[in-house]
């Protein structure tokens, strides 16, 4: 067993090239993950791709410059500086052309990076004799053949970029979330844009030496996207992205030695698989969680039918079979719906008998209110009494707040339905301490006057005054407000709507 473990994992760690790849790759992936978070939030992924492609022109020019001027071969610092300059020129060109022409930025990015990439390759071909760069290494990366200079470059880039991002975290956060607010408190938004783009160029340059031009953008955005699905905070997202990047490098490198595949592609494959796993299984934003949520959802109609029937059958210790009978739905379906309603906190269950919880009562009250208001509405629009009930049963499922409020207001806030049954009082706008128009309050409620909404109405009530509500008159069309000294004020619908009060009980 230990032997197998050693053969599979341990033996590779004794190889210098593997160890170097592991350490160098992990550092790059870590920084890429952190910067990638800002890149995907700013929707700059495509720009990252552009920077990696533009790099080759810079590397070739840097190489050529040192070779022709000083006769030095493959000078790493010169190539690095060359790539940074190339990245800078690319960004500047993109900015200039998208501002000066009518083309959109993504189009310009595409044009520029392809052009500069092509230019780099052509220069490389022309100076083939002088420049010894393996184009394949460039495109696919060479993580297992990583050199010391690349290693140093990686470490320096990592230290600088991480320091900048940690130190100025707040600034990066606010400029990416709300640049207008950032500018208004004096943060130089443009400067932070440049700093971020510069960091991105550095990171891309060090990523290219590991995984190559094509895949470097993947190392930048895939771990960040994985993290995005797992958390709701930017700082945590950065940490998770870094971890995801590092595990991708470790997993990918083993994959590459086991399968004898190239290092860069193995890392990217592992990274992508990790992303797919998270996409499916993430606890909140994953596809599975979404699917489960949907599946657990009981059809609204069934849920409400069950609630209503429990309410009708007494609300307490109602046998499930009675419910199924009364709403004429298969017992199996009802049982399944009830299980889900219990987990939603609408019902309690004891030995196959169910009881409405407080939340369930509220919900059934909401439906009763909606049902009876719809009945009143149907009467109002002239439907025959016999048909009203059945029609209202269909309509009661339309009970979003705004609809109910609209009907209630249109009918003049009725208190009784056409069958003479009490319509439950509005319980969304009028619980204790809420501010609501007088028109919504029923007899016996106490309240404090807040303000009179429409100053064209002449009402002798002042803010701060305590009132209570008397019995409505004229078939509910006249509201009676009783002042503390017992004086009664009569209001019509419009006036009652205009007086806002804070409910006391």
């Amino acid at each position: 067993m230990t032997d197998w473990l050693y053969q599979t994992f341990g033996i590779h760690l004794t190889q210098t090239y593997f160890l170097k790849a592991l350490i160098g790759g992990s550092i790059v992936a870590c920084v890429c993950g952190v910067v990638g978070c800002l890149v995907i939030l700013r929707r700059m992924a495509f720009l990252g791709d552009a920077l990696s492609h533009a790099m080759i022109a810079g590397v070739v020019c840097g190489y050529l410059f040192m070779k022709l001027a000083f006769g030095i071969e493959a000078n790493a610092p010169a190539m690095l500086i060359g790539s940074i300059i190339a990245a800078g020129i690319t960004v500047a060109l993109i900015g200039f052309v998208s501002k000066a022409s009518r083309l959109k930025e993504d189009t310009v990015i595409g044009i520029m990076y392809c052009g500069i990439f092509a230019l780099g390759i052509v220069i490389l071909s022309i100076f083939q004799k002088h420049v010894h760069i393996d184009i394949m290494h460039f495109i696919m990366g060479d993580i297992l053949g990583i050199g010391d200079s690349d290693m140093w470059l990686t470490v320096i880039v990592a230290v600088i970029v991480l320091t900048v991002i940690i130190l100025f975290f707040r600034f990066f956060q606010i400029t990416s979330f709300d640049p207008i607010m950032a500018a208004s408190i004096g943060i130089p938004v443009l400067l932070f844009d440049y700093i971020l783009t510069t960091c991105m160029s550095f990171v891309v340059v060090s990523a290219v030496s590991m995984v190559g031009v094509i895949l470097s953008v993947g190392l930048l955005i895939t771990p960040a996207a994985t993290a995005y699905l797992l958390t709701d905070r930017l700082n945590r997202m950065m940490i998770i992205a870094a971890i995801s990047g590092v595990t991708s490098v470790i997993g990918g490198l083993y994959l590459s030695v086991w399968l004898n595949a190239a290092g860069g592609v193995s890392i990217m494959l592992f990274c992508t698989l990790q992303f797919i796993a998270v996409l499916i299984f993430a606890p909140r934003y994953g596809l599975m969680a979404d699917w489960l949520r949907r599946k657990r959802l009981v059809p609204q109609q069934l849920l409400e039918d069950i609630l209503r029937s429990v309410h009708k059958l007494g609300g307490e210790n109602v046998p499930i079979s009675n419910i199924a009978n009364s709403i004429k739905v298969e017992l199996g379906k009802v049982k399944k719906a009830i299980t889900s309603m219990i987990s939603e906190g609408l019902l309690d269950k004891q030995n196959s008998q169910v009881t409405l919880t407080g939340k369930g009562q509220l919900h059934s009250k909401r439906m009763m209110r909606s049902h009876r208001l719809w009945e009143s509405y149907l009467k109002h629009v002239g439907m025959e009494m016999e048909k009203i009930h059945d029609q209202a049963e269909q309509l009661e499922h339309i009970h979003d707040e705004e609809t109910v409020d609209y009907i209630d207001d249109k009918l003049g806030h009725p208190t009784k339905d056409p069958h003479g049954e009490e319509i439950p009082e509005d319980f969304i706008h009028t619980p204790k301490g809420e501010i609501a128009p007088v028109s919504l309050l029923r007899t016996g409620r106490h309240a404090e006057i807040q303000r009179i909404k429409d100053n064209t109405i002449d009402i002798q009530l002042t803010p701060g005054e305590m009132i209570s509500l008397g019995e409505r008159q004229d078939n509910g069309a006249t509201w009676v407000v009783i002042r503390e000294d017992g004086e009664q004020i009569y209001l019509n619908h419009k006036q009652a709507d205009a007086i806002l009060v804070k409910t006391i009980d």
Partner: protein
Amino acid sequence: MITESREVAAFSVKNLTVSYGPRPALLDVSVEVEQGQLIGVIGPNGSGKSTFIKSLLGFVKRDFGSIEILGQPIEKAKGMVAYVPQRGSVDWDYPITVEEVALMGRYGNIPWYKSASKEDKRIVKECLDMVRMSDFRKRQIGQLSGGQQQRVFMARALAQGADLLLLDEPFAGVDAATENAILDVLESAKAAGRTLVVVHHDLATAAEYFDKLLLIKQRLFAYGDPSAVLKEDLLSEVYEGELKVFATLKQNGHI
């Protein structure tokens, strides 16, 4: 002469012209607004209301003109103005919690080398209490209702401690109850001596909500009491042909 701080205008704009091309977004706008009021900025779509707000924030380049915030030239007024963005311009999927958004209000006061102090956190908590969002502190902002989202940004503006608050269409797309809740927060901010400038699109409610109205369409057409601004001749000049507006206004007895 030393003037009482109360007498300094909340903001004063002189001959402001802003353009994004040959046609100016704002042309020769001059206005002075007293402190401690709730002011509605009205005008048709694309009339420069948002540009006006952004100018007060110092976020747009002025072609000409000057702006003073509480007696200070706008270049020196960083952080004296708080801003509540339009709902549509916020990335609601951004990984950030209610508490963190409100804390942004303090960013202008925290030196770059320090982290948020206990005092900053206390202020944030107080402001979240004020808009009744404390229970949702740890929620990601996309999981809130429209009205709650609006209140989070109000808390951020309050936490900033600015005396001038700018709100871009806070009443757009919220239900009646939320509208009342937002209005409540605005009123209490006003009672605390702050000046609130609110971009508003609904003429029917403008008279009811605001102390003063600013009617803008490229130029400043009127500034004053709602009754003086909501005049049929003035409105028909600004809202050419948008007759629906008048029907509702007349119906409600505003003009």
